[in-house]
């Protein structure tokens, strides 16, 4: 009870978020045309940047308004604030159930595509950047909370593998929404993939990243908005359900095998912070 009051009385935090939301929504979506497509700047991205600007760890001067107390209080609210969004997402998936069942095999098999992190990122990390064991933690998954739990369980978070998964987690937290929004809007306008496939790929296993990704996609192809959201949402739920097992039984063992093949042979003592 005491804690409920505490969180509620973090009124500066909630007031700041309210003001940020109003400003972000007042600006609205802005499309920036570049080369092969256009990058969509979404209100949620401005909101993140404005949040960073009000973060005393980023901008010292705001300490008078927001302190470490508010920073700590904000953390559990990320998940709570995404709940109405997830509920709305469910209501988009439900009516489209028939279309989703029709897309079934593709939807289920594309979960295997999450192994693409290993194919693409592992060689880069080990062969080009010369990373040691931290490459295993950094590239076996998209490094969201369940994946951190796997690494914490198997290697501990102070290990090199732990440093790797935490590093990508942090970068993902900081820039993930940007990266996925940019990827989605570029690929949507490139015509290399069908929009349905790109929508399914948005189910990454992170609410905010899926929001940015499917949001960018549906703004690029407004006529297909409902379908995009339904497929992305369904894929995201599927990733929550299967991602953990895919990581434990396939992704991590495969990454380990690859490290035996390509990685440094001497025991790595370096940490990610070189």
């Amino acid at each position, binding site marked *: 009870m005491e804690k*409920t009051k505490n*969180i509620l009385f973090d009124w500066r*935090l909630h007031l700041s978020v*309210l003001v940020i*939301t*109003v400003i972000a*929504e007042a600006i609205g979506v802005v499309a920036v045309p570049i080369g092969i497509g256009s990058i969509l700047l*979404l*209100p*949620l991205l401005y909101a*993140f940047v404005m*949040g960073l600007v*009000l*973060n005393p*760890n980023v901008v010292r001067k705001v300490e008078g308004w927001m302190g470490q107390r508010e920073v*700590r209080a904000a953390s559990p609210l*990320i*998940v*709570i*604030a*995404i*709940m*109405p969004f*997830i509920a*709305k*997402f*469910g*209501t988009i998936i*439900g009516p489209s159930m028939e279309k989703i069942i029709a897309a079934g095999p593709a939807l289920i*098999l594309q*979960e*295997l*595509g*999450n*192994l693409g*992190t290993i*194919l*693409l990122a592992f060689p880069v990390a080990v062969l080009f950047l010369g*990373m040691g064991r931290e490459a295993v933690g950094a590239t076996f998954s*998209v490094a969201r909370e*369940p994946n951190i739990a796997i690494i914490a369980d198997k290697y501990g*978070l*102070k290990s090199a593998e732990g*440093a790797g998964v935490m*590093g990508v987690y942090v*970068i993902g*937290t*900081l*820039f993930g929404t940007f*990266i996925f929004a940019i990827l989605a809007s570029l690929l949507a306008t490139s015509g290399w993939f069908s929009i*349905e*496939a*790109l929508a399914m*790929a948005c189910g*990454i296993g992170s*609410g905010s990243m899926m929001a940015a990704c499917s949001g960018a996609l549906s703004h690029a192809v407004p006529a297909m908005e409902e379908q995009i*959201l339904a497929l992305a949402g369904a894929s995201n*739920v599927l990733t929550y359900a299967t991602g953990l097992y895919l990581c434990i039984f396939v992704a991590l063992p495969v990454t380990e095998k690859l490290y035996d093949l390509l990685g440094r042979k001497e025991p790595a003592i370096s*940490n990610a912070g*070189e």
Partner: protein
Amino acid sequence: MSTAELPVDYEAEKKPDLVQHAVLLVVVSLIALVGNTVATDATIIQGLIGLAVLYAIAMVGLVLTYAVPVGLPSVAWISLVGILVTLPWTPGSAWVLDKVSHVNFLTLATPCLAYAGIAITRREIGIAKSSGWKLFIVAVFVMTGTYIGSAIIADLFL
């Protein structure tokens, strides 16, 4: 440093209980209501009813998270509830759909990202700074890898 101070914040912090969730969910719903009114043509009343329905869905999902301990995260439960109440063959699904149609989905994510920006800790900034550029490159490849990997397979089987 004890294990309680692992460099990952989600482990260190206590998760809010059901009552706290209920209260905080009201706070974020009100913020979302203001955002929705700014972003869309929906009236405050339409937005309020829509968000009340979404609130109910979220709460049922939360209760299920506590009641059915199979390790499924709350967001997975909430989306399942949202799916179930809007299936074409669920009674009353048309009513639910009509009410929530006045709430813009993207606007609902805006407050979440604002909290996320404020929640970044000094430690997280430290990690990003010290091993920054290498991890940044790897992270970009990780995200591109999962996205394009999934898109290629989905495209093959569609």
